[in-house]
């Protein structure tokens, strides 16, 4: 019999405790004397569990997760590629891990050097003039990029007038959310019949109230925007700035530089393209790369290499938008990205996008035989299928996703982008082998066959996971968001 899973608070109890602290080796005084007038808390209702049991608890929890090191994880737009182990080791070096952000430039030259190097490499790879590494994630980068654009328009006396941001209907949800946060109104333009930007719709939406056009390249359907140069030309002609959502940079890396596409600013998700682990939802890092004219507005402080080769943090940036993070962004995440870039080198970089594109196109053609492929063009690093063809059997995309879990692979991103009904967004990445792709394709084909033969099998899926389908309606009706104490 398997013991039922219990939360930490339901284990142990009074008298149990974890690893010990040393005895106080300085003269002790009563707290009431040291903290006169301070109200101390009467109780802390917290776990009381021995170290071995805490270790077992979290080890057991870990076994309930699907993860890249265990199996295929084709989550579209998330670039779940292999995370090299050496990067973890290097990020944990004591000289980095124990560095304090307020220790002063002289005491932290190693960190500053690494920071400057990450910025330089990212600028080279993306074709921009400068990079800030302060933003902690992609959406944080979007916000930062939009504040840079806002500062630019303000510097030209057009801040009040330009209050709109144009996004295509295929955009990630973070784009409009970031626009709102930066004080902008979002204008959504419909995609054309081929799922890429409809230039006519764009031209109609653009005017002297437009602050920026935000575009994901390749877009969320996995297609390169064939008229991207024209998009940038139109936007600039209207006085707007062009923002690139870099979530899909894995398709371009080493092959196309976004700076050459006419963009003024972009963010980079290093946890996607540059292979830093996703950590169950973070940390990521969202460096922002900018063209020359936006450089004066970058967040402070800016790391600058002096003539003697030493690196200084420069605070004297009168036109800066200010700080966006408590300290230096997700520094150790950036270290991992640096290690990864250096491991690849120039040719390795180009190999990433080449194989990512190859893998995606191969899977797409294989799966187009058993699922609808709404956009038949060659894709870039990912593609979107539609599960609408299974409707006649009463099967939804959600059922396909859940059944996939039984085959030891993670489900693709589902129901996004919103412009494809019953969407299945699949991104294999370059680190998957032919064998893995074959296994996934077979599983998908078998599920399509099962839909016709035994729809109920899919409705009840998954069958082999630690828990079955969970009642989300119940979870949100009267949400239980914290444990109750036994």
């Amino acid at each position: 019999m398997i013991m039922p899973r219990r939360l930490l608070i339901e284990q142990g109890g009074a008298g149990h405790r974890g690893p010990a602290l040393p005895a106080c080796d300085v003269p002790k005084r009563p707290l009431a004397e040291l903290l006169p007038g301070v109200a101390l808390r009467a109780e802390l209702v917290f776990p009381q569990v021995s170290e071995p049991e805490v270790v077992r608890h979290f080890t057991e929890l870990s076994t309930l997760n699907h993860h890249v090191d265990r199996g295929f994880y084709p989550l579209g737009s998330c670039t779940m590629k292999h995370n090299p182990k050496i990067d973890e080791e290097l990020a944990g070096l004591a000289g980095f891990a124990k560095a304090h952000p307020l220790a002063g430039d002289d005491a932290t030259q190693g960190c500053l050097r690494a920071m400057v190097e990450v910025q330089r490499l990212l600028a080279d790879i993306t074709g921009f003039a400068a990079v800030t590494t302060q933003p902690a994630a992609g959406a944080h980068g979007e916000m930062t990029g939009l504040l840079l654009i806002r500062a630019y328009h303000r510097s030209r006396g057009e801040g009040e007038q330009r209050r709109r941001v144009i996004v295509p209907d295929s955009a990630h949800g973070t784009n409009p959310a970031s626009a709102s946060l930066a004080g902008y109104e979002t204008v959504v333009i419909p995609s054309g019949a081929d799922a890429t930007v409809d230039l006519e719709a764009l031209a109609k939406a653009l005017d002297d109230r437009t602050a920026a056009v935000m575009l994901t390249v390749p877009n969320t359907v996995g297609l390169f925007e064939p008229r991207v140069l024209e998009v940038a030309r139109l936007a600039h002609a209207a006085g707007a700035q062009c923002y690139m959502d870099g979530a899909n940079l894995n398709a371009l890396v080493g092959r196309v530089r976004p700076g050459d596409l006419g963009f003024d600013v972009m963010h980079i998700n290093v946890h996607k393209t540059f292979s830093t682990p996703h950590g169950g939802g973070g940390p990521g890092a969202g460096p922002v790369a900018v063209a020359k004219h936006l450089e004066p507005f970058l967040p402070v402080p800016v790391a600058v290499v002096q003539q003697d080769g030493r690196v200084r943090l420069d605070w004297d940036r009168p036109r800066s938008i200010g700080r966006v993070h408590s300290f230096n962004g997700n520094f150790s995440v950036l270290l991992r990205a640096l290690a990864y870039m250096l491991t690849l080198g120039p040719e390795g970089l180009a190999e990433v996008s080449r194989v990512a594109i190859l893998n995606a196109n191969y899977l797409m053609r294989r799966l187009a035989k058993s699922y609808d492929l709404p956009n038949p063009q060659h894709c870039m690093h990912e593609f979107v299928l539609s599960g609408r063809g299974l409707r006649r059997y009463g099967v939804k995309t959600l059922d396909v996703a859940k059944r996939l879990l039984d085959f030891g692979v993670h489900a693709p991103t589902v129901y996004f982008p919103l412009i494809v009904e019953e969407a299945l967004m699949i991104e294999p990445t370059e680190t998957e082998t032919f064998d893995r792709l074959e296994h996934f394709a077979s599983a998908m084909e078998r599920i399509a066959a099962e839909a016709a033969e035994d729809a109920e099998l899919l409705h009840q899926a998954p069958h082999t996971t630690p828990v079955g389908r969970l009642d989300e309606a119940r979870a949100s009706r009267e949400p239980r968001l914290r444990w109750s104490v036994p």
Partner: protein
Amino acid sequence: MSFVGLTRDEEQRMLKEIGVARFEELLAAVPQEVLLEHPPRIPGPLSEIELRRLLGNWSRENHAAELVSFQGGGIYDHWIPAAVDALASRSEFVTAYTPYQPEVAQGTLTAIFEFQSMMAELTGCDVANASMYDGATATVEAALLARRQTGRKRVVVAGMVHPHTVAVLRTYLDAAEVTVVEDSSGLAAVADLRAAAGPDTACMIYQQPNFFGLLEDSVALHALAHDMGALAVAVCDPIALALIEPPGRTGADLVVGEAQCLGNPMSFGGPLLGYFAAKQALLRGLPGRLVAETVDRQGRRGFVLTLQTREQHIRREKATSNICTNQGLMALRATIHMGLLGRLGLREVAELCVQKSHHAARFAAAIPGYALEFEAPFFREFVLRCPVEARRVVEAGTEFGVSPGINLGRFRPEWRDLLLVAVTELRNADEIDRWARTLQKAGGAR
């Protein structure tokens, strides 16, 4: 090296299935003029052996590993039990992503639920979310929530909130909408605040303990905020909350802050761990992810992401925040850390911080030329006025193997003689002696 495993034969089979002769045909949509002939000339490729040497050298250019830290100012050198690293570095946690498919993510989801539970208990609030980027952006999100909730614009910063937090607030909001009210006592001055704030105030934000380590009168500040119809926002150190009455129990509407101190390395200031806790009434306005308990079809207990209609991927421009990727792994580390220390250990850490920091402060005050700058009770951290510029004291530390504190002159020129000193449970009597000798040496060198 790009971690690719594809043979020439396999590639040919794939191209054939795709129906193209060459890879380049797949790039038909890309304008010819933007296709690079050669990849960007970055350095590399480096083998593991070369990489370890290069980054190893850089890591040693930092003084961090060999100096004993008395630095704080928002980032602290606390004990991280060995089991935290061992468990949190399991690739089952590290290489998973956001738990979009709960059936294969119960590990991550359960841990987040436990994190939410512990943060709610620590802060004295009803609910806490799955994490924010850091303390500063958590504070911004609190201010934004308060603005939506009250329909008012102005944010009043009461007393010594970390200068970086104030800076980030000013970046996100319009600087004119942020009013800072400081006082020479080092504490928030209630009378001045009453005069400065008003019916346009959305929230009053204070830090506990504040940037100088001083403990604010939270009850008075909550009452003041509520008097003017504003929300009370407490930016708290979670270790202090194991010792002091939590602000959520005395009227704070939102309790947010930085939780790096719970099991996360300093790492040059990132990745950090923002947390966000609130009263039940504000639940639907919360930013970020939330995990709830539920059951599967067989009635087995399980956990799922919930109330997602607040979030950007559903609500888009009307979302409560744009946050997507958060600080999941840092939250996991904090959860394991709190689980290991437990009810007694966390309180013990907090008390050791008080005993040791007060011991060091008494020690320093007895050294000629040094004095405590403020009189109010402090937790773990205090401000010393030095007989020389504080940067001289910092420089003198190398000889004694210590980083004696933070030179506050880096924040404001008028603070150049002030040293911010943090003494955690990690520091022992010998290290505190070496720290004191640093002060003596630096002070005598006047």
